[in-house]
């Protein structure tokens, strides 16, 4: 399988802190790649580098062979990479439907004249977008919430809405930052099912997660970060039994 997103010796430094050191990983096409590690390991910083929010101090990021290290966040998104955020960032004063429509920004008609005049072409394009939005919402089970303001939704629903918003763009790769954090076990199962369904539909997924059980059940590949470095990488079972990984999670032994 071809590598979809690769990093090579990625380093990220903030003042005196080495958030990432020599991170070289490869997310394969059609994989479900989990990135795990203790808190502060640099997982979200990694995502931020991958999606153009942070510019790494050194190293490269490439997508489908193309160097995207210095690309802007909007540029990365236009390549078909979508992400969710750790502290879910919805657009609170927009309706759920509009939030999802926003995700389809790049697929929408942008000709000012046809917008103002309201040409049949524009109307058709908008109608189609609305249909996609509804489909995405129903995929995550939020069909009824379309007209509510996103800010009024419950936590779990907002997480699902973020997913719908990412999906409507028909992305090649979705990066999920702790999708199951803070939700009930029932929600977690359903989210897990949605993610698997996404994956089955041909979307490559990379996800940051703390819930090791969730990860082991879902992932095709796992990479473990600790203190900004990769300490293990490979199929879930191998990683799980890796002594370095266990030590990282359990803490350093007193020597």
């Amino acid at each position, binding site marked *: 399988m071809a590598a979809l997103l690769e990093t090579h010796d990625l380093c990220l430094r903030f003042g005196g802190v080495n958030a990432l050191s020599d991170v070289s990983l490869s997310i394969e096409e059609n994989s479900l790649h989990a990135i795990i590690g203790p808190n502060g390991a640099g997982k979200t910083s990694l995502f931020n580098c991958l*999606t*153009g*929010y942070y510019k790494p101090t050194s190293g490269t990021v490439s997508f489908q062979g193309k160097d995207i290290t210095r690309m*802007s*966040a*909007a540029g990365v*998104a*236009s390549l078909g990479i*979508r*992400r969710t*955020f750790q502290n879910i*960032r*919805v*657009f*609170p*004063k*927009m309706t759920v*439907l*509009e939030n999802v*429509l*926003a995700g389809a*920004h*790049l697929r*929408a008609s*942008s000709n*000012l004249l046809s*917008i*103002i005049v*309201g040409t049949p072409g*524009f*109307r058709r394009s*908008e*109608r189609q977008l*609305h*249909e996609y939005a*509804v*489909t995405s*919402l*129903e*995929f995550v*089970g*939020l*069909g*009824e919430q*379309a*007209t509510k*303001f996103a800010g009024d939704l*419950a*936590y*779990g*629903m907002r997480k*699902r809405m973020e997913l719908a918003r990412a999906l409507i*763009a028909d992305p090649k790769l979705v990066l999920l930052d702790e999708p199951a954090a*803070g*939700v*009930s076990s*029932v*929600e977690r199962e*359903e989210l897990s*099912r949605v993610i698997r369904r996404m994956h089955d539909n041909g979307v490559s997924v990379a996800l940051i997660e703390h819930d090791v059980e969730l990860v082991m059940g879902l992932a095709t590949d796992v990479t473990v970060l600790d203190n900004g470095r990769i300490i293990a990488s490979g199929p879930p079972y191998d990683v799980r039994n890796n002594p370095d990984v266990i030590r990282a999670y359990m803490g350093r032994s007193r020597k």
Partner: protein
Amino acid sequence: MSRNLVADKGRRGVLSTKLPQRGAILVLVVLAALVPHMTSDAYYLSVAYQAEVLICLAIGLNIVVGYCGLLDLGFAAFFAIGAYTTGLLSVDRHWTILATIPPGVVLAVICAVIIGLPTLRLRSDYLAVVTLGFGLIIQSIANNLTLTGNATGIYGIPELTIGSMVIVSATSFYYVFLVVLVVFVFISFRVRNSRIGRAWLCIREDEDAAQAMGIKIHRYKLYAYMGGAVMGSVTGALYAPALTAISPPSFGFNESLLILMAVAIGGMGSVWGAILGGAVVAILPEAFRQFSQARLLIFGAILIIIMMTRPRGLFPEGAFRGTAKRLRERFNDRSPPRPLRPSPEAAVLDAPSEGP
């Protein structure tokens, strides 16, 4: 997976791309058209069309501040550019008023790009101060150049002719600005319900998340600022012949502040809010005429109180949501639509979830 939402509501519901609130617009236009018939007093008519001018400006500023969330404290500059371009070209060069509108708009947009390009890259707060400065600079230029008539300004601006009609009286300007107002409202709604409007709202709500959607935030911020420039300058261009004489004091920070008040008080991000706010702010000074000195003091206090109690204005977007539906139900005497049949997964998902 069922398509209940689409099937139940039909094309007209969720998927409707028709202009929202068309009925309300129609009612408004009809009512507004009747106003000149209610009074023949030139004073009231002039207040009426001045109110319309302020509303037009507020709708323009609503795009910048309301939709895109950019605090613009110098909107009167675009108003001035439109008015002065019209004044200069029509008086010195004898252009017809209508012909002077495009150059004014072009100039305003160029200025918007010059000011906006460096500033919009940065945090939006800086834009506030830069726009403030821009407003002052334009006013200073108008005040200090002999070309623009220094402190006396430009007078003797010819009348507006549209085809064979000559627009001179307050009543006819009332109708002219009413048309402009309706066009602005129409454009606002159309653009709001397109990818451009949605992009603006996303930028306003959360710039970082907006970028994750592929929205080029700097470009769209500039578009919003340019959109405001267009509306401001068009309004200014038509204001010049209405007053026949323009001078710098009408285009200063106080004016920018009044327009901002109209948007902030009326409701940010809402065209209706801009209309209501504009009407209120235009009419209030007349009502408070006797307290002329303390007027601004009272306005300032009102502004503070409203910002504290209703930070998004009296009628922000969404304030009227559901009103049309409720009215329709009331009149058709129908029970509200039954809840959609949920999909099996949804039943599981909507079980109470705990979470932060």
